[in-house]
């Protein structure tokens, strides 16, 4: 150390030269991502906010219109309705999905035969394309010839309009959404469970805890960060559900009004009807709601 100190002058000079070299290297390393994000994400974000105060015509001429879009937003029954549908979707799918994925993860975490096979089976739906999944489910749900109704009829029941009955359609869509997401969430939770040290379980067992107590007193508390993560991501993706509903519910479907989500509304306004300014305002609203949910949860987690 003493020798090093006597030469600090030289070392420092060399270091700063190296530092500068490092800076240049670092900027070269980060340049593609940073510039790309600036051009395609950060600048668009700012632009989008600006658009929400404008009327944007088909030919992309933006004329300032102040808060008109937002005023329209809060008086638009469709916005309220689509938000209602989305909220319903989130409120049902998030708890149910969380429950199912924790349950399955717990089952797979215990030593049953063929775990890896089950794991793969459950994970598959989440790598498959939503559009394809929706198509298959649409066939299953088909009122006249789908296998679901054929099974019901074979048992002597009456066929149900799974996707056409306005009261049922949204729930049918939820089932598909759950089917696609449970596997992925389960894998994450399972990884969390496997990360819990065995010594906790051994200690609890010595104290006389049964398997159910072990689950509620050891697994669940130690899994809370993972559960929290899964919950936030599920809520956010629930708010943004699009593909499945777009594929399954056509514009002529009688249940159309009862299944449209905010992102659907955004898409229709922006790219079907061409009201890009209004659509921008809708997207800001989606952003605000998601932010709000995240902040509330952050606070909840800190207190909990």
């Amino acid at each position, binding site marked *: 150390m003493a020798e090093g100190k006597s030469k600090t002058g030289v070392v420092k000079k060399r270091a700063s030269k190296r530092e500068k070299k490092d800076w240049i290297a670092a900027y070269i390393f980060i340049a593609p991502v940073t510039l790309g994000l600036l051009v395609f994400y950060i600048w668009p974000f700012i632009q989008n906010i600006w658009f929400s105060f404008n009327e944007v015509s088909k030919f992309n001429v933006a004329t300032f219109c102040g808060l008109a879009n937002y005023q329209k937003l809060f008086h638009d029954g469709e916005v309220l309705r689509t938000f209602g549908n989305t909220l319903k979707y989130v409120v049902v799918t998030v708890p149910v999905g969380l429950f199912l994925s924790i349950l399955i993860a717990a089952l797979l975490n215990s030593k049953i035969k063929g775990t890896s096979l089950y794991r793969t089976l459950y994970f598959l739906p989440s790598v498959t*394309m939503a559009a394809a999944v929706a198509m*298959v489910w649409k*066939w299953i749900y088909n009122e006249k010839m789908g296998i679901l109704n054929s099974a019901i009829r074979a048992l002597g029941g009456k066929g149900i309009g799974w996707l056409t009955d306005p009261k049922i359609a949204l729930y049918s869509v939820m089932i598909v959404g759950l089917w696609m997401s449970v596997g992925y969430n389960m894998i994450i939770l399972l990884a969390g469970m496997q990360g819990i040290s065995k010594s906790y379980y051994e200690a609890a067992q010595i104290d006389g805890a049964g398997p159910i107590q072990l689950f509620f007193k050891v697994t669940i508390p130690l899994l809370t960060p993972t559960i929290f993560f899964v919950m936030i991501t599920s809520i956010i993706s629930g708010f943004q559900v699009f593909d499945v509903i777009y594929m399954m519910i056509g514009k002529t479907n009688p249940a159309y009004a009862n299944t449209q989500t905010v992102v659907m509304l955004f898409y229709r306004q922006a790219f079907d009807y061409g009201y890009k300014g209004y659509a921008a305002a809708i997207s800001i609203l989606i952003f605000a709601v998601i932010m709000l949910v995240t902040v509330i949860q952050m606070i909840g987690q800190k207190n909990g």
Partner: protein
Amino acid sequence: MILTSFKTVGEAMQIPPTIFPKKFLTDAYSSIVTALPFGRVYLNTIISTVVTTVVQVLFCSMAAYAFARIEFPFKNAIFVLVLSVLMVPGQIFLIPQYRIVQSLGLLDTIPALFLPNLFSAFGTFLLRQFFMSLPKELEEAALLDGCNRFQIFRRIMLPLTKAGIVSLVIFTAKFAWNDFMWPLIVNTSMDKMTLGPALSTLQGQYTTKYPMQMAGAVMAVILIIVLFFIFQMVICCSRGKYSQEVVEGLIGKRN
């Protein structure tokens, strides 16, 4: 009950090849190829997925290394900027992105499919976590041996973060393959489309021809499933530790 419901549905995905007689099946497949430029659509999806994955992983790993390991001015400010993109739902960017693509004259072209997806805040963040977990001594030793930053990156850091790279590849490939709204927005002609929106057209045009729709669905998912299995085998067989790391990578290594 839930278990079986999942299983039967899982099997239901595979039903078309088994439930229909062979002749019927090939009919459905050949009619799908004539009804859509299916080969073209398939190729588009492959091109878009491969380009997105390769470029995104390269760019992200470069930036992630710099953010994790090199000190430079404004590092934190730039990183916060990158992270801020992560917090915003994707719809916010769509309209301006559409206009950018439009002003570049790229609407309804193949590059439009992947252009904005080449850059990812998520990937950068994910890989940064992996780079940060590597011991600093490795790099210091290499620096003393006279390696420059690029050599360190390519020869030492990149090979050591294989698990992170694999998880980002899986994630990105899956995302690009299954992307739905963006291709639907930027491209209109069928021969510039990817599989997702093409299926939606198929469904609209041949509402009652279920075997054909199923044939399309099967073809749309088959490649990504095969890819998934290959990756799984690579992950599981090469090293036991891998799979755990990859899963951790996928959930973003929260702790």
